[in-house]
């Protein structure tokens, strides 16, 4: 997941997508297809059924699955669910967007100039090693318990894969591209806008693909830790108030968000990579 371990390697993207569950090229299980067969859901169904049947004998903090939905309905009726979900989605989107913009800018800077790269590397490396959970208290010190604080934490955690992928993307730019823009006498702005950025999209999106699940997890993390607002805050509050069914319902919502984000970035990335095949 996440929470990037140090080590500035060009293979950053690969390293993370390795945990993505889809086989790379040369996948031996090609016969089984990229996605595991649906019959593999059976154990999960069995466990949930068993849970449901044994519910009477389980402690109250493990309510049966049928009650999870009821918990969610309760939350929705009290008008808590929708605002929380909105807050989470907004924090996630703003944080990821900020991370993409900043990560691309920094990535361009450190990718284009080895002096800038060398100058910033120790600082960036140490910043990257910081577990996001430890960033939360600092962010609350500086920004208080606010939406800004949430976005800052999410951005600071999600930026790294984008930055590193952009950097290696810039390094691998084909020299012909730069020669071409020079012979076309493009000015700096047009060169970046028309030549460099289009060639970099696949790298940037690879970074975003890794960053998106991170951003979601960190959004939940900061919400659980600070309980400002959002689904994470509701999870923490419901457990504290002994509303276990609501808690499980919300955990389910978090899982759904995560599936949704994964599906979205995979689709988006497949599209981008197809549209912007880098020149060889």
């Amino acid at each position, binding site marked *: *997941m*996440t*929470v990037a*371990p*140090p*080590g*500035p*390697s*060009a*293979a950053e993207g690969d*390293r993370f997508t*390795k*945990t993505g*569950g889809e086989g*790379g090229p*040369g*996948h*031996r299980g090609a016969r*089984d297809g990229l*996605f*595991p067969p*649906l*019959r*593999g859901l*059976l154990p*999960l169904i069995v466990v949930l059924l068993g849970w449901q049947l044994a519910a009477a004998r389980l402690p109250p*903090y493990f309510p049966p699955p049928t009650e999870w939905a009821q918990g969610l309905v309760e939350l929705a009726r009290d008008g808590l669910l929708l605002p929380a979900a909105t807050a989470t989605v907004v924090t996630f989107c703003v944080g990821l967007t900020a991370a993409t913009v900043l990560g691309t800018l920094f990535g361009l800077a450190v990718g284009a100039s080895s002096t800038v790269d*060398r*100058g910033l*590397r*120790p*600082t960036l*490396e*140490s910043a990257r*090693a*910081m*577990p996001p*959970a*430890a960033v939360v*208290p*600092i962010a609350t*010190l*500086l920004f208080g318990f606010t939406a800004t604080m949430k976005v800052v934490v999410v951005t600071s955690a999600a930026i790294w894969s984008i930055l590193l992928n952009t950097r290696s993307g810039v390094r691998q730019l084909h020299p012909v591209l730069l020669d071409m823009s020079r012979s076309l006498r493009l000015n700096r702005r047009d060169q970046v806008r028309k030549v460099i950025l289009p060639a970099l999209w696949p790298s940037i999106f690879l970074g975003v693909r890794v960053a998106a699940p991170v951003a*979601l997890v960190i959004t*939940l993390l900061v919400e659980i*830790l600070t309980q400002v607002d959002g689904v*994470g805050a509701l*999870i*923490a509050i*419901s*457990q*504290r108030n002994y509303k276990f069914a609501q*808690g499980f319902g919300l*955990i*389910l919502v*978090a*899982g759904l968000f*995560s*599936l949704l984000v*994964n599906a979205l970035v995979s689709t988006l990335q497949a599209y981008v990579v197809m549209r912007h095949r880098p020149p060889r």
Partner: protein
Amino acid sequence: MGVFRRVNGLGLLTMIVLLGLWEVLVRSGALDFQNLPAPSAVAARAQDLVASGELLVNLLHTVRVTLLGWLIASVVGVGLGLVLGLWRPAWRWSMASLEMLRAVPPISLVPLALFVFGFSVRTELTLIIYASSWPVLINTIEGVRTVEQELHDVARMLRLSQVKTLRKIVLPAALPSVVVGLQLSLSLALVLAVVAELVGNPSGLGNGLILAQLALRPEQVFVYVFTIGLLGIVLNAAFRQVAARAFGPAIRGQGGAP
């Protein structure tokens, strides 16, 4: 990690300049954050905390729990991963369930774990083990499953027994992926340790951090945050050293040291 391999004078200079800038801006009052301490204040506070032994006690607790949880998670992840990666029916009949379970962010289970296990080290260990098993598990499965067909052909051609194929062909080929998984898990274990200590466990660096925050001592918060960051760097560097020493050329160029 470039920082350790050669001295990057320019990089160190940048860092020192940035710290100096921070100091000057805070002292002159140009930075308008209520709770931002100057680096000198943080350093002074760090000295106190080291002298009193508080920092060391918390550090040792976090290191111990992180490593213990990570070791257990590694054994579980590699073991289960080998079964699921090698035995097709097991993969077919359970991988979809695992993918669904994996979608649930472990972070969202923190409040539940806190309730079930209370404010204890059990909460911390359980969270670490659960969360950091995933990267090892997934990477082991993928590593074993993506062993190239040619290698299997070689094994068949050499008429290796199944055990020998496993030991001489499959495991070495899967090793780089497993090592990457182990490394991801280690970082994750530290994150979960800090989270668990922040919300519940009454010891460790995360706990020191939250106490400093509640006591409104910003310098102390920064001391703990820097310590945690440093610990992350040290654990990761140590892992690289050990992995390079233990597996050597087998993992070079594949997610090991860049």
